[in-house]
């Protein structure tokens, strides 16, 4: 009772031998936006303006102009603990005015910049998003988290046993992960508001690869208690388990489509792991050819149009992005374990043990964490 047709598998395997590379196509909206910074007022105006400008430039999404013409206008009043920011279109029409009154100037600046991004690009910026990842700095692998720019690093688990495969819920308030603290690979959930932690899956065999659905209502994972690693979907408490696959092919690393209706995962029918997509309520898996013969760890872009994954070519691991509309696959960079950012413009991955954030369109990368041992498996909140 395997997959849809032997023929499709054969085709996928044949295609897998050829490296199909193609130019990356991204929607036209992802160009730099022109911005004019009007002088910020208020007692902290100069400081706030400098920080906002740094953040906007660091994002790689903007060109900051001196004055005049066809540019969005950003202005603010900053004093006490607040920033009151305004963004207007080139025509002068005010797009929004908002007051930010959080605990720190940095958070006010980040939220203002996220909303500038939202007003201009239609999707909020990622300055306040969180990345969970694995680090072996403590001597064994534990789960850590940081802000999107690599600051505010904190250790989440102290199991003194291997921890792996973190998955943040979209709002970064819950974290699912695998830990061997019981002696076995089991799945746990931490509420990051309270640090309360529960074991949610401890079936016999190996339990791992937990992945939150975009709406936070379901978890996909691999469990092997039925005699072979298969995909299951449960609720975030680990209950209501529903089995999705039934084959000897070792389904692993499920990832959700942004609408929650599909899963993409890797399976290994021939000793050459490749990707498959499937309805998240169960159904017949469909092969997804990347053109490479060893593809694993997929992640689905927020616009639903692209899947990034890791390929292994002659022992070296690289990131590829497959365009689902054109079926073209583009080799992005050396590295592994990619995860999309909420804005669909950035990808985080690991290369030589360091955490790298890649601006897909600009083609620029930033090493976000480099001095915390060997890193792996980042998961990015929305």
């Amino acid at each position, binding site marked *: 009772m395997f997959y849809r047709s032997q023929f499709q598998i054969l085709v996928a395997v044949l295609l897998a031998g050829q490296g199909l590379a193609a130019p990356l196509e991204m929607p036209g909206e992802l160009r730099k936006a022109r911005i004019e910074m009007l002088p910020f007022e208020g007692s902290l105006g100069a400081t706030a303006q400098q920080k906002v400008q740094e953040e906007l430039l660091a994002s790689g999404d903007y060109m900051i102009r001196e004055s005049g013409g066809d540019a969005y206008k950003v202005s603010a009043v900053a004093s006490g603990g607040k920033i009151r920011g305004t963004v207007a279109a080139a025509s002068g029409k005010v797009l929004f005015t908002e007051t930010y009154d959080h605990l720190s100037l940095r958070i006010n600046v980040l939220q203002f910049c996220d909303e500038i991004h939202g007003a201009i690009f239609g999707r909020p910026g990622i300055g306040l998003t969180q990345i969970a990842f694995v680090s072996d700095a403590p001597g064994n692998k534990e789960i850590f988290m940081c802000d999107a720019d690599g600051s505010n690093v904190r250790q989440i688990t102290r199991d003194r046993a291997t921890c792996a495969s973190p998955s943040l819920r979209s709002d970064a308030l819950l974290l699912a992960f695998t830990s061997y603290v019981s002696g076995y690979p089991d799945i746990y959930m931490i509420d990051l508001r309270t640090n309360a932690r529960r074991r949610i899956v401890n079936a016999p*065999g*190996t339990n791992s690869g937990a992945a939150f659905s975009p709406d936070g209502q379901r978890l996909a994972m691999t469990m092997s208690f039925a005699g072979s690693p298969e995909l299951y979907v449960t609720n975030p408490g680990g209950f209501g388990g529903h089995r999705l696959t039934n084959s000897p092919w070792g389904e692993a690393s499920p990832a959700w489509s942004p609408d929650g209706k599909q899963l993409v995962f890797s399976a*290994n029918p021939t000793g050459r792991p490749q990707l498959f997509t499937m309805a998240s309520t169960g159904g017949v898996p469909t092969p997804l050819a990347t053109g490479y013969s060893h593809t694993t760890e997929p992640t689905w872009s927020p616009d639903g149009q692209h899947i990034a994954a*890791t390929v292994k070519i002659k022992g070296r*691991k690289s990131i590829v992005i497959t365009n689902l509309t054109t079926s073209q696959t583009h080799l992005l960079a050396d590295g592994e374990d990619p995860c999309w950012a909420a804005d669909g413009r950035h990808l985080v991955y690991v290369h030589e043990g360091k955490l790298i954030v890649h601006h897909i369109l600009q083609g620029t990368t930033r090493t976000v964490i480099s001095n915390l041992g060997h890193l792996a498996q980042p998961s990015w909140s929305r």
Partner: protein
Amino acid sequence: MNRLALLLLGFTMLEMTTSCKFLHRHELMAGRNEMYSYLGPGSDQVERGKFPKIIFAEDSAMLEEGEKRKLAPVGKFMRENPSARLLLAGFAGEEGTDEYNRVLGEQRAQVVRKFLLESGVSDAVMQTLSYGLDIPEGLDHNERSVQIGIVR
């Protein structure tokens, strides 16, 4: 009459205690058998090294003929030691990404489990787990293999 009732009661109780020891795999979310409560790194309840490692080809979970022969002594041992339990630990080498390695290790452990089932070892006395690429404390670095430990 009383003696018969007592005997029946005794048999029933014996039946209940014996059946509690075994895993109920047909339950969807059955937890681990408490007999295996802590057999992880540092546990001295697992005897390792009695059986040879079962080696696999890169990216493969196929049990090769030469490796199958290594499993013959395991079936014999289990027949001679009916109270023993086996822990099948799967490993992967530098084959791929972490989660893929973890699942590959489990595939390998399951393949060994199925072979042992066919050679007459009871399902109830075997458990699998995968370490993927990670090396638990107390074990050598083992690529692409399954290691069989004994729990008495």
